[in-house]
């Protein structure tokens, strides 16, 4: 691993080198290394790029790292990762993709992640997207996450894309069984001419299932963002989707919330707000000695924390 690759790894997975425990590290389109642990098996797919991950029932407090690094300009890849989470598990999965594009061609990584949570399973899934490089080539990421939550299971998904991704189209779909819960916390910041679209489609199929989809985004310069969320309630359930965007400079933000109830006991709420930084927030921080620019940064950093 070279210095650039190490830096990308640090940005997306918070680690300097090969992690302990179960991991799969993909660099420039190839599997760089993988390691199964006692309770987590990682198996390379034979028919297409990607891996199958099997977490044994009852696995508690274990983590799995599956970062992807692209430092070769112009590389395009599509990877399929399937996560089979056994009953009564409690695991943390750290994914993420970092691209360094120093060339003129477009680099692209698209991860298709499917999660199958068995009864009572609990998963925390963290995914960071990061791009850099001084070349004129674009960094593109189009992830698709699909989750099927079994009875009484819980999944928390934290996604962040703060810097350097020129174009992204993220799609997340989920189907929830009885008593299952899905929490999604998304953070997006776009600069320059960047474009980011995120689409959530959650179906609350089982009784007492529930979801919270929370998106916070900041659109700067001439960038554009689109947030789409669809929550469908098929049973007695609760769904809440929230999009909160700060718009700056000449950016564009579109929020399209959609809630659909097909059961009289489905309780669904959507909230969407787009606005610039409140003037009084800037003034307050300026009375503490910050310049307007510093105040703006402080407010944006807090908002995306």
């Amino acid at each position, binding site marked *: 691993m070279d210095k650039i690759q190490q830096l990308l790894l640090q940005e997306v997975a918070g680690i300097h080198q090969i992690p302990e425990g179960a991991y799969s590290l993909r660099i420039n389109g190839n599997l760089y290394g993988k390691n199964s642990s006692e309770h987590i098996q990682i198996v390379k797919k034979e028919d297409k790029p990607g891996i199958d991950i099997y977490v044994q029932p009852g696995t508690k407090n274990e983590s799995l790292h599956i970062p992807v690094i692209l430092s070769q300009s112009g590389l395009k890849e599509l990877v399929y990762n399937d996560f089979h989470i056994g009953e009564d598990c409690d695991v943390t999965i750290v994914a993420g993709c970092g691209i360094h594009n120093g060339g003129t061609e477009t680099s692209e990584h698209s991860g298709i992640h499917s999660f199958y949570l068995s009864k009572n399973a609990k998963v925390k899934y963290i995914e960071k997207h990061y791009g850099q490089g001084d070349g004129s080539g674009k960094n593109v990421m189009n992830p698709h996450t699909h989750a099927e939550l079994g009875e009484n299971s819980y999944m928390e998904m934290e996604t962040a894309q703060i810097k350097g991704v020129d174009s992204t189209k993220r799609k997340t779909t989920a189907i929830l069984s009885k008593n299952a819960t899905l929490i999604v916390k998304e953070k997006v910041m776009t600069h320059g001419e960047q474009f980011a679209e995120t689409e959530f489609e959650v179906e609350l199929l089982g009784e007492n299932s529930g979801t919270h989809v929370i998106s916070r985004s900041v659109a700067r310069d001439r960038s554009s963002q689109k947030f789409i969320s669809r929550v469908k309630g098929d049973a007695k359930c609760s769904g809440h989707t929230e999009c909160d965007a700060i718009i700056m400079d000449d950016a564009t933000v579109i929020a399209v919330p959609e809630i659909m109830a097909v059961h009289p006991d489905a309780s669904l709420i959507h909230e969407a707000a787009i606005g610039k930084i409140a003037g009084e927030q800037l003034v307050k921080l300026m*009375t503490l*000695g*910050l310049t307007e620019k510093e105040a703006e940064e402080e407010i944006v950093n*807090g*908002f*995306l924390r």
Partner: protein
Amino acid sequence: MLELQNISYTVGDKRILRDVNLRIEDRFVAITGPNGSGKSTLAKLVTGILTPTEGRILMDGVDITDWSVTERARSGVSFAFQQPVRFKGITVKDLISLAAGKNTNISEACNYLSEVGLCAKDYINREVNASLSGGELKRIEIAMINARGTKLSVFDEPEAGIDLWSFNNLIKVFENMYERTRGTIMIISHQERILNIADKIVVLANGAVAEYDTKERVFPKLMDVQAGCRYTKNA
């Protein structure tokens, strides 16, 4: 020392403040007067949030009229808002640290918060958002001014919304603040107990200084300074 020379402030054709002249040299100065008399406007002019239409503002002899909010803050002006601002994601600790100008540790933050009657452990990592009550926000606002410890601290109705916390404690905060900073504390207030601790009281009425004197001299006249309307006055 703060000096306001011939300060006027006009919005459209409405004169909010007219020809205000004040030399503030005492440690506690209270500003009172009826609603709409221009008290908050005066505070915003001093802190740089508003710029006077006419007149000059001097601090320690230096003309600061054209200074920005940031420049004034950095040269020693603090301002506790009447209505504290809420933020998303910014914590009490962040604000105290920004106010103190350094990353404050738990024990330092604890000092500032306990002085305003808040338990640091419960508040330090709380977001300064809508989950905090008006009274809690007011106290955090005061704690921030305390953490800054500047030579001029301006408070716009600090007592409003603080119900259970006794005024004695609030007054103690101001006294401690003075002991530490040896600066001037300017408080906009309607509360007699706050006016009582002031060295001087400024009474604003209809955008002008109606009185500026010691409380012994100002108190008896306070009842005469009612905005009222000309019909009730004549009645």
